């Protein structure tokens, strides 16, 4: 059974139909890439899945339960976490805190317990710290050691992208939605990101849905590729199938060029 399933999901803003009758399945342990030209509705799909927007119609099912209509924090606690295309770290918190804060959904200590430092609060704090350190260790030496106690704004751009992924991992999610994880990276960093996504699936056991523009990355990571245009799915299948699909070429290069070819 699919881990995540979008059934005939639509969403419009004003008169603009941004996502139109979209069906999408992501199986357990899969890496699925969503591609499409700018404005195709890719990020909106992420916003719909994570509950930032509600779908106008259709249903989003995660682990067999409907999640559309739930509050974003509930959806995240159920097991879907995302990164943002325009990075949204908590810049004035330290690197470690950025990861620790994302465990809010599966810790329980109340404010009173924390105030009085009751056992549960102390135990959870220890666990959370350990978990955060583990998640950061996933990125090798990149986010280790002295960087833990530095504010997030002091990180380089690539490290911020990594930290966003670490933060999403710390929510305890099984499904990660990565919104252009390699955007703005140089070729070396892009390559590292490709490897990292593979490692996330193989070692981390995560299922991954990723939006990406860099076709090298898409080729390197995807089990399956879904192409969107104007909020409609225009192609689906392996990377090669989608990349050679005439409708995809048309969407990217414009109608005339596709005809003359």
């Amino acid at each position, binding site marked *: 059974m699919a881990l995540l399933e979008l059934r005939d999901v639509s969403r419009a*803003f004003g008169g603009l139909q941004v996502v139109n009758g979209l069906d999408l399945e992501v199986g357990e342990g899969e890496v699925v890439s969503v591609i499409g030209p700018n404005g195709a509705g890719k*990020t909106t799909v992420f*916003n719909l899945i994570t509950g*930032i927007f509600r779908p106008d119609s259709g249903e989003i099912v995660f682990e067999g339960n409907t999640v559309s209509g739930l509050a974003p924090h509930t959806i995240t606690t159920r097991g879907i976490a995302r990164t*943002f295309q325009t990075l949204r770290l908590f810049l004035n918190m330290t690197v470690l805190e950025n990861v620790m804060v994302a465990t809010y959904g599966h810790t329980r200590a109340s404010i009173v317990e924390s105030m009085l430092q009751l056992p549960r609060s102390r135990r959870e704090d220890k666990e959370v710290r350990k978990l955060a350190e583990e998640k950061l260790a996933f990125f090798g030496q990149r986010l280790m050691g002295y960087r833990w106690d530095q504010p997030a704004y002091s990180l380089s751009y690539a490290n911020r992208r990594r930290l966003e992924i670490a933060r999403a991992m710390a929510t305890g999610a099984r499904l990660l939605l990565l919104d252009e994880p390699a955007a703005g990276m140089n070729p070396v960093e892009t390559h590292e990101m490709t490897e990292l996504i593979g490692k996330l699936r193989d070692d981390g056991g995560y299922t991954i849905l990723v939006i990406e523009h860099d076709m090298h990355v898409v080729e390197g990571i995807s089990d399956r590729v879904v192409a969107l245009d104007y909020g409609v799915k225009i192609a689906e299948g392996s990377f090669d199938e989608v990349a050679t699909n005439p409708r995809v070429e048309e969407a990217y290069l414009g109608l005339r060029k596709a005809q003359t070819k």
Partner: protein
Amino acid sequence: MRGPHSFVRSYFPVNWSLFFGELVSGLTLGSIYALIALGYTMVYGILKLLNFAHGDVYMVGAFIGFFVLQWLGGPLTTAVTGWLAIAIMFVVAMVGCGALGVGIEIFAYRPLRNAPRIAPLISALGVSIFLQNSALLLWGPQFRSYDTFDLIGVKSYHIGPNFFISNIQIFTIAASIALMAALTWLVARTRTGKAMRATSFDREAAEMMGIRVDRVISFTFFVGSALAAAGGVMFGIVFGQIFSLMGFTAGLKGFTAAVVGGIGSIPGAMLGGFLIGLTEAFATGYLPGGSTYANLYVFALLIAMFLVRPSGLLGSPVIQKV
């Protein structure tokens, strides 16, 4: 004790003269609130800044009007005719407060354009308390009177058996509508108005298109503050009495009006102003404890508006970009 009869009477207005009385005073009050609300809504539209000091600019306007009147020889022995005196008061107060508004912007808000959102708000709070207490220091806590009766004489016109309206009320409503019409024309039809709209839509883009954004913002503050000053002078003329702490409550109501109408929307501010004025007047006339707690009813209206339609009557809902 109130019996059921009086209950019915007070909730189903059969007393037409009370009804029309409150209607006219609500419209008068509303036109003043609308003028204040316009300043809030313009500044908010362009800077996304809540200018707490706006109410105090209104107060300063009322005082400038008062001092101009004194300078002209006082209400009884005015050097010029009453209506001309009023015109001079308006002009001086509007220009003076316009300059004050521009000064406030340069001094307290301009350096904070790119600061965290909370910084200009606190700065605005500082300006407000500064102006209010400066007024207290210079002019004292006592009430000052415009003595409108001596200045122009008050005539009351009857239309039908129950409808009364005074020349001052007519003047206030008409003058504020004229000012609003002028503003609407300014924003909709002039080059400056176009620049204002462009700046409020996207400041950076406007700057890149060659609009001198700082100048546009200064101009916005000038116009907004001048309208508030006009409101202040009107208040003085209608209610006679002004005092150094009058800006706070009036500012709150003006803001409420702007919000109820939909902040950022100019017709919304006008509509909101009249709505708040009418609410206050009818609450005073009809609701229990009304004369004391009219402001509480206005507050309730504000809350209700937020719950029902957070973007206001004429505002457009904002889509957050993720």
